């Protein structure tokens, strides 16, 4: 049987590598060629064949010595928010257009140096991960492989588009308010944002420190489980990285054990309670998305799960709370880009102050500027209590709502986004309309909970729809296992855009 390398699962690529059907160098060549053929998607920002092939050769050597792990030799690519020693690290910004980091992010170390995956290059994203459409990249918008006139979602739009178009079997992304889940939904792939603190933020260019969390993007839930297992773990370089017993339990072990005992019954999810929050199905949710999500929940019921109606009463408040906290942190995190030590520096200036001002004015795009201004405002003297502290209070209440809900269910399910991918340019003049698109993903981020997106159908416009699965803290293994059961009986995750087959 000949394997379709472009869309193969990580497990089948492993088998192909182990059985010498294909070498890591051949896999790398295959995907590099596809990436170079698909430059019009604008998914990749930086490809360096030499670097990639040297990693592939090293992986082949490991495989030959019998020292390969589950992911050794399999290609992947990084969202350009993770710093890499060899490839440029731009965060999608003119500010860092030529920046090369002297060190690798922890995630890069773990996946490439540790697990032996082969990096194909760096993937486009919204500038400093700020955006829901990937139109905010200083290096141009990314196109959705299902319809190149549409956005791929954001901010991990390059990652989602690259996986969806078969330019890479896997990619990393980051999620601050939905940036892994929403582009995954819009490009018809799977992704998981883990519990805050699972994946080290060291080497992730910061947007909003208390929300930022890295995670994997791939075709299926099983691929995500393999990837997350390799990415996660305590890192002494990140003080917010989790170092407790629950965090120490391997994700893959939980994934494999979760529903093993019921596997043969035909109802593997027997006893699993799925909470369906009424607030996720109200006004603003488009009918085709609702239908696809309802159908998916129906499939889970067929697998033995029971449906429970729940309420997350402060869902609406997650938008103002998020758009106070995230910009507040961003305004401070982005202060280091001043043109003094690295990054863009204005050509002409009068004095030091002028140099900083001009460098920032020239280096940042409209969205970071908007958020820096908002953030500086909500932190300023006299407004701090009314905005920042109030938002933190709301944040705690939102987290409590989730804990209340988890008393009656194991997972919460609903849509990832109210609509499918819109047309490039459609919402450019209305940032608030764009912010409202994040309503179903922000609460999870504010609460620090794990959330994932799995493909569950198509809208009226033939664009993919994603189902959001929200679990309680540290429950990634079970979430991924439940999603995997769903993907055993459905094939939405296996669908591919015609133009890239």
């Amino acid at each position: 049987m000949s394997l379709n390398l472009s869309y193969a699962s990580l497990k089948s690529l492993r088998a192909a590598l182990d059985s010498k059907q294909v070498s890591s160098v051949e896999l790398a060549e295959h995907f590099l060629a596809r990436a170079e053929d698909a430059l019009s998607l604008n998914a990749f920002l930086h490809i360096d064949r030499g670097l990639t092939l040297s990693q592939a050769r090293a992986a082949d050597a490991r495989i030959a010595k019998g020292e390969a792990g589950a992911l050794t030799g399999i290609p992947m690519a990084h969202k350009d928010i993770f710093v890499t020693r060899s490839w440029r690290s731009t965060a999608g910004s003119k500010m860092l257009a030529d920046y090369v980091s002297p060190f690798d992010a922890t995630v890069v170390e773990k996946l490439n140096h540790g697990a032996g995956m082969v990096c194909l290059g760096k993937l486009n994203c919204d500038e400093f991960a700020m955006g829901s459409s990937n139109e905010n990249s200083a290096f141009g918008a990314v196109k959705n492989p299902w319809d190149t006139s549409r956005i791929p979602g954001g901010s991990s739009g390059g990652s989602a588009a690259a996986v969806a178009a078969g330019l890479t079997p896997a990619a990393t992304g980051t999620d601050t308010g939905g940036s892994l889940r929403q582009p995954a939904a819009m490009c018809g792939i799977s992704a998981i944002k883990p519990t805050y603190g699972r994946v080290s933020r060291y080497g992730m260019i910061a947007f909003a420190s208390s929300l930022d969390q890295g995670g994997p993007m791939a075709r299926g839930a099983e691929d995500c489980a393999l990837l997350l297992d390799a990415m996660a773990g305590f890192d002494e370089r990140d003080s917010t990285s989790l170092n407790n017993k629950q965090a120490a339990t391997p994700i893959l072990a939980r994934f494999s054990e979760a529903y093993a005992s019921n596997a043969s019954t035909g109802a593997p999810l027997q006893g699993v309670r799925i909470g369906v929050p009424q607030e996720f199905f109200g006004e603003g949710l488009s009918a085709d998305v609702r239908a696809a999500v309802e159908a998916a929940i129906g499939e889970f019921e067929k697998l033995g799960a029971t449906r429970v109606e729940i309420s997350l009463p402060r869902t609406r408040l997650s938008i103002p709370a998020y758009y106070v906290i995230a910009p507040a942190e961003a305004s401070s995190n982005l202060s280091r880009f001043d043109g003094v030590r690295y990054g863009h520096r204005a050509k002409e200036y009068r004095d030091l102050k002028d140099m900083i001002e001009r460098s920032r004015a020239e280096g940042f795009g409209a969205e970071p500027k908007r958020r820096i201004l908002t953030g500086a405002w909500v932190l300023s003297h006299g407004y701090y209590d009314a905005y920042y502290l109030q938002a933190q209070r709301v944040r705690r209440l939102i987290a409590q709502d989730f804990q209340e809900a988890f008393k009656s269910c194991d997972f919460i399910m609903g849509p990832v986004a109210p609509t499918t991918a819109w047309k490039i340019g459609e919402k450019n003049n209305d940032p608030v309309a764009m912010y409202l698109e994040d309503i179903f993903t922000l609460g999870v981020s504010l609460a620090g909970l794990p959330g994932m997106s799995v493909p569950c159908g198509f809208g009226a416009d033939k664009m993919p729809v994603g189902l959001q699965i929200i679990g309680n803290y540290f429950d990634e293994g079970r979430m991924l296992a439940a999603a995997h059961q769903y993907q055993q009986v459905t094939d939405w995750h296996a669908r591919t855009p015609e133009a890239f087959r």
Partner: protein
Amino acid sequence: MSAKKGIPTGWEVVIGLETHTQLSTASKIFSGSSIAFGAEPNTQASAIDLALPGTLPVLNKAAVECAIKFGLAVNGGDDRHIAPRSVFARKNYFYPDLPKGYQISQFELPVVTGGSVTINVDGVEKVIRLTRAHLEEDAGKSVHGYVAEGYVEDGYAEEPAHGQSGIDLNRAGVPLLEIVSEPDMRSAEEAVAYAKALHGIVTWIGICDGNMQEGSFRCDANVSVRKFGDEKLGTRAEIKNVNSFRFLEKAINYEIRRQIELIEDGGKVVQETRLYDAERDETRSMRSKEDAMDYRYFPDPDLLPVEISRDWVEEVCAAMPELPETAAARLVAEDGITIVEARLITQSQAFVRYYENLREYSGSAKRSARWMLGEISAFLNREQLEIDDPEVPSESVVGTIIASEAAQEISKTVAREQFQALCDKTEADIQALTKIIEKHELRQAWIRYIESKGLKQVSNAGAIEKMIDDVIAANPKSVEEYKAGKEKALNALFGQVMKASNKTANPAQVTEILKRKLAS
């Protein structure tokens, strides 16, 4: 009202101090870089100190322990002033030598709240209350007028006439403990006494090397004046850039004069930050309150709140040295010295160590105390040395001299001279002696030595009488003058006897016998 030095009658001065002490940790507060002073620019700046994209701070626990130690020291060991949960906050502002565009400091929940320091001015004790002490990181240094030799990179300001500015980030991230006092001081003298007392505490407990020249201990003074009896505080000015106790006193006194003159001339003091210029001995306005920045403080999301368990505090407490107050009280009780002597001896741990060793070698606490505050302190002041300097004669030798003096083997004068000789290290045999004595043959060696040099004190009355008779016979003029009522003549005769005895005659005996003989 009490008159204070340098303050015109009718005025009261109110001073509070903010002191930045550089903590003696091995590495920076949020990175592993060394904090050693004087390295080549930017050789002690890691990716974290440079605030490269993707870097994160990790708290150095040793810095927290320094703060805990300080909190215990200024609260008599009471742990209630050490926050069980302390939070780091970001202080946001732009400056080229501030790499992250914010300083990690503490705002709402500092490690230490409250405490006090006792000062002594002209024999009067006063308690200065502390508001708080919080941890923070230092910024880097801008070096202006710097020109990179032989090369100008694209993008630098094209104004070679004005030179360039360089940034040295070695200091960025160095741990500081900022200690804020209440506005309890009423004169420059009190402020200096407070600063010195604080300096004594932080060096005593070993959290700061106290080196003011290298900026390890820096004071900012908040100074205001008001008419005596006024309830309301006057508008204050903050004086920065004071790097010695002497300059602190001068800067505050200058500021007091400036403010009083300003008000007396019908003007108003404006709230501002002023820089002290030591060369001109004046303070100059740096920025007024109108340009005051909004620092937009908020809890740093990269750092979890620091949980300080009571177990941890106890552990730190157990490892702490005896505090100066406790040590002073102990010395008064054990040694019967005065509290004033005890306070002076407890000026530093090294001083106490020296004293305690001296006490052991000399066998006399009171004499040791007197020597510490007399001969030894004078020597240290004269030579500008610290007590633990290797040039200071060892306790064993000095203690032996004191013991010899106590046993009346040598006179006080000889004892002093021998100490001086030790300090000068001019005589080769003194050095040889030091070696012998340090081989623990101590007293025997010493006695052999003074005997061989003819330094041993003569208390034999017959021998002294003989010397006196000779002197009386040889100095009839002085004897006549004395008998005629000129008391001073006795001193001349006394001096002659001492000279004849090579300073070994017991001076008390000489005086007594001399008087007796002359009266007859």
